[in-house]
């Protein structure tokens, strides 16, 4: 088993302990307490943070040293048997999302768009934006990063190499394709940040959806009809694994005339959509998160609530719509600007 890339000495000498001090959900009194908690985590000892963690990934982004604090935290939760969610809930989802062996070889051509475990969204891959795209999907190529929410690094280690192997042997290799567009942040985060931290080889070149769309908008510049609308973006947890892509999204919004007005719970301060806390049996907390997110969006008078994560959208869309905002995926918003 590959150990997670991590150096405890870096944490010992960290003056800010941002991974915990910036946490929006766990109350830490001061740097001294944060350091104490962090040292316990690193030493594999039970501590408050391991129980209270929302598993929002944000500490991965907050760490100024790239020392993978979230991956280590999940590792410790699993080692100590500190499941954030009840066992049958995790066990059912493990079966639900398991590779089913139903994958069949198929030729693909660029752009290859990986829809991961969201086959119900393949209809989103359409129009000029995705012209000529090959779509691949299913649990046999599921990126499995979701297990970070359930203290199951062991499943990630077992299943991510299988998914990578399936992507290569069933699709990319025979078609001599190396580039793969990741529709979901989770896939991109898995095949870039997570794979590197867990020592998993990735033989293809993952492309973030935002990079793909941004490029396509240059190609389709003449077709853009600016939306001229205020939007609120619900930044997902997995984007914390690829924070650089947030700037690309800004470029996209600028090109299509979507104004991402500054608000409290965006960018580094993005709040969880509330989906995972419900699995952790913390519904009242989840309600509070949803309320804060939507109230913040309404404060800036947004017309659209824009998602890139289908799970965030499934979790929040109904409430968002009931409150007068239009829930929409980034790709669909872009297509709207292209008149499609």
């Amino acid at each position, binding site marked *: 088993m590959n150990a997670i890339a991590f150096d405890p000495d870096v944490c010992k000498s960290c003056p800010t302990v941002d991974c915990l001090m910036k946490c929006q959900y766990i109350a830490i009194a001061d740097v001294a307490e944060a350091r104490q908690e962090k040292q316990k985590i690193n030493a594999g000892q039970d501590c408050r943070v391991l129980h209270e963690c929302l598993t929002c990934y944000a500490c991965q982004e907050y760490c100024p040293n790239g020392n993978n604090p979230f991956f280590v935290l999940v590792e410790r939760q699993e080692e100590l048997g500190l499941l954030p969610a009840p*066992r049958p*809930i995790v066990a059912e989802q493990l079966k639900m999302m398991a590779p089913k062996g139903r994958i069949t070889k198929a030729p693909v051509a660029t752009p290859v768009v990986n829809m991961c475990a969201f086959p119900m969204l393949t209809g989103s891959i359409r129009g000029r934006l995705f012209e000529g795209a090959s779509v691949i999907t299913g649990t046999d190529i599921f990126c499995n990063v979701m297990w970070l929410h359930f203290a199951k690094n062991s499943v990630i280690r077992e299943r991510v190499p299988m998914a990578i192997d399936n992507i290569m042997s069933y699709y990319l290799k025979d078609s001599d394709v190396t580039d793969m567009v990741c529709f979901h942040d989770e896939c991109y985060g898995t095949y870039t940040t997570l794979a590197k931290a867990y020592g998993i080889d990735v033989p293809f070149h993952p492309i973030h959806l935002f990079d793909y769309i941004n490029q396509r908008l240059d190609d389709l510049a003449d077709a853009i009809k600016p939306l001229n609308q205020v939007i609120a973006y619900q930044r997902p947890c997995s984007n914390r694994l690829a924070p650089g892509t947030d700037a690309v999204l800004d470029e996209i919004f600028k090109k299509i005339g979507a104004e991402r007005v500054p608000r409290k719970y965006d960018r580094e301060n993005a709040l969880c959509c509330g989906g*995972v806390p419900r699995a952790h049996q913390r519904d*009242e907390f989840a309600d509070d998160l949803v309320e804060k997110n939507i109230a913040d969006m309404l404060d800036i008078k947004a017309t659209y609530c824009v998602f890139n994560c289908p799970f965030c959208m499934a979790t929040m869309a109904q409430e968002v719509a009931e409150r007068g905002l239009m829930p929409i995926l980034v790709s669909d918003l872009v297509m709207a600007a292209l008149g499609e």
Partner: protein
Amino acid sequence: MKDFVKKLETIVGEAFVSAEAEERYLYSMDQGTMPPAEPDAVVMPKTTDEVAQIVRLANEFKVPLVPMGGGLVLSGLTRALKGGVVVDMKRMDTVVEVNPASRYAVVEAGVSQGGLKAYLAKHHPDLKHSMPDAPPAATIAGNICIHGSGHLSVLGGFHSDMLTGMEVVLPTGEVVRTGSCSVSPQWFARAPLPDLSGLFLGWSGTTGIVTRLGIRLYPNYRYNDMLIYVCETAEQMPEAISLLTSVQVAEDMTPWMVPKPEWAKGFFHINIAFGAHSKKELIFKRNLIQESVRRLTDTKRAGFLPIPPVQKGRFMQIPSPDLARFADARKGGGFEYVGAMMAIERFPEAYARGMEIAEKFHVTYSLGARIIGAGHAMMFFFAYAFNRADTEDVQRAADALEETNRACLAMGGIPWKAELPAQKEILQQMDAGTVGLMDRLRNTLDPNRIMNPGNWEA
């Protein structure tokens, strides 16, 4: 029989009597495993008076009568076991009255579940009745008379508990009323009178023909939600059910254990439905339900399945489409189940026996329950799908059902809407005094024993 049919025509009109082979074939069976038993004729009355005339005529000719509602009982209770005439009540389909202040409806015996639901949606959208998970063509009266249950059974108990009164044509042709409507113009309750309704509930049409009845209605909430609680073992279920019902917030609670989809196999689920007038109230109720099992959830051995709001719709359809899907699992549309009324603490044993029987007979199974009242009892169902065109498959399911009936009785349960073999098993086990009383009552009410003979024969 020819004379008899002619006389029936004079009562209901030619168009509503038939002794033709195709009608007799259609009325000889239901969708379950019981072998066909053809009637000699079928009649469809429109009024209580027509029913009374038919009954008097049947006494004169000593012709058996088999009352039928939707004909969807699945256990063959509306088969003419000793020939005679099926009295199909579907033409008596008027919603007579809805009293919104006292929340009851008076309906004729042929009013269907779907019919009343549609009527209330149009005329009284703030009210609803408890729907069983039967096809919408099932009748209100039929379901009440078999002690059915449905989507408000945690709130209101068996559907027969929701009965407020009846109009019945006795086996000798007299028309009687039970409940408040026997004294008052209103049908609000069975209390405080001697409760004669029991003479017609659970008797499978052997004591009279119900022509009209009153049922309780309930608030139809604007906001509705559901939760699924999942346990690791069957042994946890009685405690989980007891805790979840203790807060008395749920309208319906239905445990389910299925082999497919694969992810659900081996886990124990409880669907919990509830509603409210406002979102705030809905969340309050959800929190109450979640808090009720907090001590169990905190052990991490059970918990609520996270379901995004957009995916909850399929679990909140009334009636549930899941049983209809299961009914065609083997193709050929065959489906029957043993629904055993049982004490809740028997849940683990019932599950274990169900699994043993499904394995022994290689039948496609679905196990589950509907909780009755605030955890007062359950209707544990052992459902088996089969291909009606495959006689071996039908027989396998019939054998599994028969063994399940015996197993239920051995566990202290009682098969619901029991088919003929199960009735015999129940009667064998029943207190001798009770069996004797049943027989005396029938002889008193039906001296010519014309009402659905062959059923509940001591």
